[in-house]
């Protein structure tokens, strides 16, 4: 054990004293030892100091924390390290170390954020209103756009109760946005009192009362759950009972709470309910300020666009009236659902989804749609590029300070940690700059003979319709079989019932994505062979009518993962695509996981019975400036392939690496790859292989 600790914690350089730790661990049961050692080893692959700190603390924590929670804590620490670095990660470790067991006596039954967030994210989406995001943070609160929840909800000794409590928090946060709590400036209101903190907490309590009553009306089941969880709460004082009487009325609004605030402020005590959220006036105000102008502009631009569409539809019939175009919106808030009737220039219109979302959001901010929001934007009043989120120019991010805006984030499997690094790869799609040259024509000339042969082979593949004779059912009579059967019958033998011909039409229903290695090592011959292979492939695939897409991939470190669009599934194989194939040039390094994950996602959006993902590569996954080397890269790629397989995609790899036998069978499985010794074989072999794997 000591020797392992020396190795994992690299004590030769770090001088960590592992002898004491080993002694402490030796006193534990074998099972506990293995658990802690396993985690030390896994965390050490992320950062040695973190692993060392974990090792020092874990033995004392184990008796009072469930393993599930210790694991969650370890993974959380690694996540924090990934996102913000060593100092904050160490702080997270210390927090666990300093925690008071009395306060955390139910932690073992706690509901973990990562477990409840996906469920409650969908839950809150089902309730009507603005789409709210769920995020992890220190406490439970909302700014009207996101709901922040703590990493662990552990107030009760029952795990399900803790989940229900998290649900109650989400529902209260939703109710705050839905029923107007966040419509006022809390900071300004609180500033009118000698003790703003106290005023704020009283307002929060009044609002929780009011919102609970709303929930009782709209979601009675949820309200019962809230009452059940709060059964030990203190009874309300007479003053608070009086407040409650007013706030539980059907028409009670934030104004009633504000009217009662002075009286509540004077009360010596303020009740606090189970699941009550914190009120964060600064965050609410900041989110609201950022939202208002943006949404006003967006709504006005969209209204102008809708009007224009409408005018086009009526084109010639339109009268030459000069009155300014007008929009009217009638909000309907009935049966718990928000909806809007829009009339544009006197014509009723079903609002498109994005417009409905905008209207909902504006309505929640004001309790109505202010008239100035309904004036369609005039010509050139707003630049739609500024108002709407447009895709960023993938190269522009490198000119200024680095940011991840507009990029897609993908996880990466950390083999050492045995866990994903969340949102690790920063991926952007780029288009290959097309090069209009003679490459396409030259390739066809160069492989003239082969092209003819290919066409023949692929045409045979296309006509898969065949007649199945002597069937028990079918569209037509098999006359030969019938004559035989009648002769048999005359002879006194039993007549066969296989008398029909059936046309067997096997419609090809295949979608295939090609992922082409564009790493620096493909420079020269390999790059040329890859491009030739793609052209021959496209020629063949056009004959078959299979849907296909071609993407290239490359990257430098996790921050710059690039996927190059050469042909999407919807694009036709035209001159532009041919020019892009010609324009494929070697780029940086071979980071494969993100590319496989992204292409799997794209493939899964295509409607096809069979989905194939073919990688064309010249070597093992490798990223020079990063941990993405050796086992790490191979294991992440393997995991990405497993994920793809789990969704029903068939991955396949064509490689030129002579050493590939060392790792490819591990990544793809024995039969899912093929190794070409000679790069010159590539163009012809690729089509041949394609034929094999799709029939």
């Amino acid at each position, binding site marked *: 054990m000591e020797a392992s600790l020396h190795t994992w914690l690299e004590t030769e350089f770090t001088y960590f004293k592992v002898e004491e730790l080993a002694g402490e661990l030796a006193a534990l049961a074998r099972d506990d030892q293995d658990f802690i050692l396993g985690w030390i080893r896994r965390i050490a692959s992320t950062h040695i100091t973190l692993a060392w700190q974990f090792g020092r603390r874990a033995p004392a924590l184990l008796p009072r924390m469930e393993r599930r929670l210790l694991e969650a804590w370890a993974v959380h620490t690694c996540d924090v390290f990934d996102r913000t670095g060593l100092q904050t990660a160490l702080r997270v470790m210390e927090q666990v170390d300093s925690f008071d067991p009395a306060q955390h006596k139910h932690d073992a039954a706690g509901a973990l954020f990562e477990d409840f967030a*996906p*469920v*409650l*994210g*969908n*839950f809150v*989406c*089902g*309730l*009507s209103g603005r*789409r709210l995001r769920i995020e992890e943070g220190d406490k439970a609160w909302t700014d009207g756009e996101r709901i922040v929840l703590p990493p662990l909800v552990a107030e009760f000794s029952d795990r399900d109760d803790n989940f229900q409590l998290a*649900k109650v928090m989400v*529902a209260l946060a939703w109710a705050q946005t839905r029923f107007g709590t966040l419509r006022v400036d809390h900071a300004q209101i609180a500033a009118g009192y000698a003790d703003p903190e106290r005023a704020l907490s009283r307002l929060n309590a009044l609002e929780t009362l009011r919102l609970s009553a709303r929930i009782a009306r709209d*979601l*009675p*089941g*949820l309200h019962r*759950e809230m009452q059940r969880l709060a059964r030990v709460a203190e009874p309300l004082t007479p003053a608070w009972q009086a407040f409650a009487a007013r706030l539980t009325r059907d028409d009670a609004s934030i104004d009633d709470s504000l009217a009662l605030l002075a009286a509540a402020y004077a009360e010596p005590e303020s009740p606090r309910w189970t699941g009550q959220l914190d009120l964060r006036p600064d965050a609410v105000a900041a989110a609201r300020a950022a939202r208002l102008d943006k949404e006003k502009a967006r709504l006005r631009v969209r209204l102008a666009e809708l009007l224009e569409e409408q005018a086009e539809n009526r084109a010639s019939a339109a009268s030459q009236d000069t009155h300014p175009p007008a929009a009217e919106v009638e909000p309907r808030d*009935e*049966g*718990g*659902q928000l909806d809007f009737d829009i009339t544009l220039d006197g014509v009723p219109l079903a609002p498109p*989804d994005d417009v409905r979302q905008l209207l909902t959001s504006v309505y929640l901010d004001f309790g109505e749609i202010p008239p100035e929001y309904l004036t369609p934007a005039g010509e050139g009043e707003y630049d739609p590029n500024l108002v709407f989120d447009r895709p960023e120019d993938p190269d522009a991010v490198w000119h200024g300070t680095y940011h991840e805006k507009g990029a897609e984030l993908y996880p990466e499997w950390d083999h050492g940690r045995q866990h994903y690094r969340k949102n690790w790869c920063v991926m952007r799609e780029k288009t290959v700059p097309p090069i209009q040259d003679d490459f396409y024509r030259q390739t066809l000339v160069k492989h003239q003979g082969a092209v003819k042969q290919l066409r023949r082979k692929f045409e045979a593949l296309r006509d898969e319709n065949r007649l199945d004779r002597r069937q028990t059912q*079918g*569209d*037509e*009579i098999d006359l030969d079989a*019938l004559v035989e*059967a*009648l002769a048999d*019958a005359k002879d006194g033998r039993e*007549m066969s019932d296989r*008398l029909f011909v059936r*046309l067997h*039409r096997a*419609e090809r229903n295949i979608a295939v994505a090609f992922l082409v290695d564009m790493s620096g090592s493909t420079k020269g011959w390999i790059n040329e062979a890859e491009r030739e292979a793609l052209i021959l492939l496209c020629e063949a695939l056009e004959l078959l009518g299979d*849907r296909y897409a071609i993407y290239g991939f490359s990257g430098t470190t996790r921050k710059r993962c690039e996927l190059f669009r050469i042909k999407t599934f919807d694009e036709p194989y035209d001159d532009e695509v041919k020019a892009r194939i010609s324009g494929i040039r070697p780029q940086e390094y071979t980071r494969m996981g993100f590319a496989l994950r992204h292409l799997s996602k794209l493939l899964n959006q295509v*409607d096809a019975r069979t989905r194939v993902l073919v990688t064309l590569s010249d070597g093992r996954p490798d990223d020079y400036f990063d941990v993405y080397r050796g086992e790490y890269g191979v294991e992440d790629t393997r995991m990405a392939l497993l994920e793809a397989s789990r969704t029903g995609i068939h991955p396949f790899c064509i490689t030129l690496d002579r050493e590939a036998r060392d790792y490819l069978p591990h990544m793809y499985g024995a039969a899912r790859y093929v190794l070409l010794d000679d790069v010159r074989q590539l163009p012809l072999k690729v089509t041949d292989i394609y034929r094999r794997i799709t029939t």
Partner: protein
Amino acid sequence: MNARTLDPTERLIEKEPYYEPVGEEIALFEAAYRQRIPVLLKGPTGCGKTRFMEHMAWRLQRPLITVSCHDDLTASDLVGRYLVKGGETVWVDGPLTRAVRCGGICYLDEIVEARKDTMVVIHPLADDRRTLAMEKLGQMLEAPAEFCLAISYNPGYQSVLKDLKQSTRQRFVALEFDYPSAALEQRIVATESGVSDAVADKLVRFAQMTRNLKGSGLEEGASTRLLVHAGKLISDGISPVTACKSAVAQAVTDDADMLKAIQELSSSVF
């Protein structure tokens, strides 16, 4: 206990099938019927298309022959084929031919699911020729005035690639169906399943919540049909939360997180 065998070409719907009109679809259908124009019903699954057809068949007092299309449905399956019986070959009409012969209503449900080559057999029937070519018999069948062709498809559910061809869709008068308004849907659920108005109201509210999830992980929200199923279970003594779980949540998704979220929604409403 004996199952009855019915010949659809001779059977007329006697009892009025319950149907709540949403707009002018009944008048439109009747006008199209009189003018001999085929009808295309568009709309999400379970919103009442099939029930509407039954109602129209009852109104017009014509036999209704429904064919559920699937990707192996061939032209012969619709038109008819030769069979061998006792050493003789015998021609047997397909459902489309039977409907034409008896002047009934032929309803091809989820037409997009059928093979592309199958769809062309309905083309001459769907324009002013109103004939059905029976190539194997060497005959043309001319449809009587009473015959009516109706097809349905679900634009949200069908993929772009399987979309209906322009040459097909441009032969039809299209009626668009959607989920009914909340009040109407509540009435339908209460009438069909026998639950109280209050329960029907909650069921509809729950359905709207699931429809909010469309596009955020759910392909389609709960249909009116599913609500009626849930309502029937509730009328039979099953608790509302359990009924919603079995009849709605499990029917719309298999995803564990989504299932749990939908269950939490239903337990919040009831």
